[in-house]
């Protein structure tokens, strides 16, 4: 089988990481990179065997890759994805997919109809603990879900910014909601489902001048379930990003983060190997090794899954554009709810 030709658009932090991971795949050849930074491009040109372009249009024209990884600031995703579609190219795009809600559903539809693999980088869906929690919920181990709380903390923004750059603008996809809460929201969508209503949303600035550093919101479902999210990326008590979720159901509850989960069962569950009361499982109990590790198994798993979907046409992406559009819809509802009801 000939190798899959990959182009990478955007050589920032994620583009650089994805390059390293996907370059280890034996069936992949990275053939081109596009990035507007002359400094970055000239470094890449000097050290890597790839074509480099300042403008991603040139990448499509002169290299015509089989698939692209889009790792640019989020506000550029929309135009890039349109061009990707015109060139009938498979695509992995970093979250939050697109900041344009109308385009989100439209693009999902286009790519699906054309049979092009489309994936969004909500990496929690490839984390071994969260995958296991998803399996347990589907198996009804904690019964019907009643309440949940999804939280994320980090010390990403720990001093005042100068208010420039894409990270300081919501329109460009900056701020704690797009950059971080998107993960907590997608995790809720993945484990509980997309909420029917979003209420009680609040945004706080801590260090950032123009965007929020903390967000909280309440999600309500027609089936009677409800839950909250709280995300704060200026919490210096956390050395590294932490993602926690607690789910309460009629038969028990689960507390999970990326490294472990605790499950409380109202009754013994011999089929799953849980006893009545608390049971703790660590990542060491549920992990699956990946062929090449750079920064967590989930980052390798998601990109290898993307390649897998390209090679196996009947395989559906575990995190497609339609999942990305769902997260985008919730994000927009949070912003709207805050504008309408969130200010004293």
């Amino acid at each position, binding site marked *: 089988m000939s190798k899959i030709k990959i182009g990478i658009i955007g050589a920032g932090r994620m583009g*650089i*990481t994805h390059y390293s991971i996907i*370059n280890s795949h034996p069936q992949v050849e990275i053939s081109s990179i596009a990035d507007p930074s002359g*400094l970055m491009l000239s470094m890449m040109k000097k050290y890597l065997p790839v074509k480099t372009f300042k403008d991603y249009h040139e990448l499509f024209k002169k290299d015509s890759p089989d698939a692209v990884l889009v790792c640019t600031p989020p506000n550029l995703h929309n135009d890039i994805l349109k061009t990707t579609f015109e060139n009938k190219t498979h695509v992995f795009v970093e979250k939050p997919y697109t900041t344009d809600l109308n385009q989100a559903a439209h693009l999902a539809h286009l790519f699906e109809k054309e049979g092009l693999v489309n994936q969004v980088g909500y990496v929690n869906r490839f984390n071994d603990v969260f995958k296991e929690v998803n399996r347990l919920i589907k198996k009804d181990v904690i019964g019907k879900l009643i309440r949940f709380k999804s939280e994320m903390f980090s010390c990403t923004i720990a001093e005042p910014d100068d208010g420039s750059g894409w990270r300081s603008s919501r329109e460009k996809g900056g701020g704690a909601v797009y950059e971080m809460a998107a993960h907590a929201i997608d995790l809720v969508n993945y484990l509980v489902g997309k909420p029917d209503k979003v209420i009680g949303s609040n945004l706080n600035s801590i260090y950032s001048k123009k965007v929020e550093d903390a967000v909280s919101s309440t999600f309500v479902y027609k089936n009677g379930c409800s839950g909250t999210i709280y995300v704060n990326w200026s919490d210096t008590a956390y050395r590294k990003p932490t993602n926690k979720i607690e789910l309460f159901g009629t038969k028990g509850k689960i507390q999970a983060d990326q*490294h472990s989960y605790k499950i409380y069962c109202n009754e013994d569950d011999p089929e799953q190997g849980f006893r009545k009361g608390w049971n703790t499982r*660590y990542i060491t109990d549920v992990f699956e*090794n990946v062929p090449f590790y750079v920064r967590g198994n989930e980052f390798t798993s998601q990109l290898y899954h993307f390649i897998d979907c390209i090679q196996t046409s009947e395989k559906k992406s575990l995190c497609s554009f339609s999942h990305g559009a769902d997260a985008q819809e919730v994000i927009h509802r949070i912003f709207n709810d805050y504008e309408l009801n969130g200010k004293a």
Partner: protein
Amino acid sequence: MNMDAIDKIVFGDNQFFGINHMSQEKAQQLAEKFFDIENIYNVYRLAFDAGVRGVMLNSNDRAKEICEHFRDNASQYPALHWYPSIPYPHKYANLVAEKGIFPAINEVLFKDNSARKVMGMISKGSAAVVTKDAVKLMQLLIDVEMKIFKGLDIKVVFLQNIITDLILGYDLKDIFYEYCEYIRKKYDALPGLITQNMPYLKQKFEDWGITKVVICASYNKIGYLMSPDVESYEKAAQQNNPDDYQLMAMSTLASGAVPAREAYDFINRQRLQSVVFGASSKRNIDETVSLIDL
């Protein structure tokens, strides 16, 4: 010429800095315990009493104070071998997230340096930027990270796995070659690489002809953080010539998932030259030291 032999047992530092791959709760408890730096020194003394002479220390925020302590109080301690690991990845991760890649590098290079140093480094630094010379840039970053270890007896300088494996994915022979040369020449130490892909890295280094290197990798019975799998690690270690590569095992207990006796029964059967472990009680330190038999 044979490689200078490394210590069979090296004392690690994850327990001091709130790092636990398995449980964030455990990590937090430990971070609280070691908030008072005297508690860290007390644990080091327990390790030295047990006969440990090698110390691995990551160049994080608190390492500076620890290094100063051991420099200033050298007479109170036995002769120690230091195994710095650089850089402190979260510092870079946060800075890059906040400012972007090149501004982050600038900040690291030019912050917290005396005026004279800054002048010297800026001219060197802008030269690196102008020539787009990744090797120069790397050397500057190494120097910044290594400053705090000055005056200590350095045996190996390790590159943290997040950086090693990133560069490994890029297949950048030259960068690894230059790293190893620089560590040998400038720091008179053995170049070390921490990786979560030991068999792959070792094979690459053999292909590239880069030898006399220390490779530190997770190595445990259940295969945790061992890509692609335990079998490949066992095979790579079995076929290894320790004159070319000394292998150091870390995460031997898989963050506590494997009981110590079982863990070292497995480790002792492997062809390894060294183990780095972390513990914070006298009982665990003494037990581990007594169980390691390479």
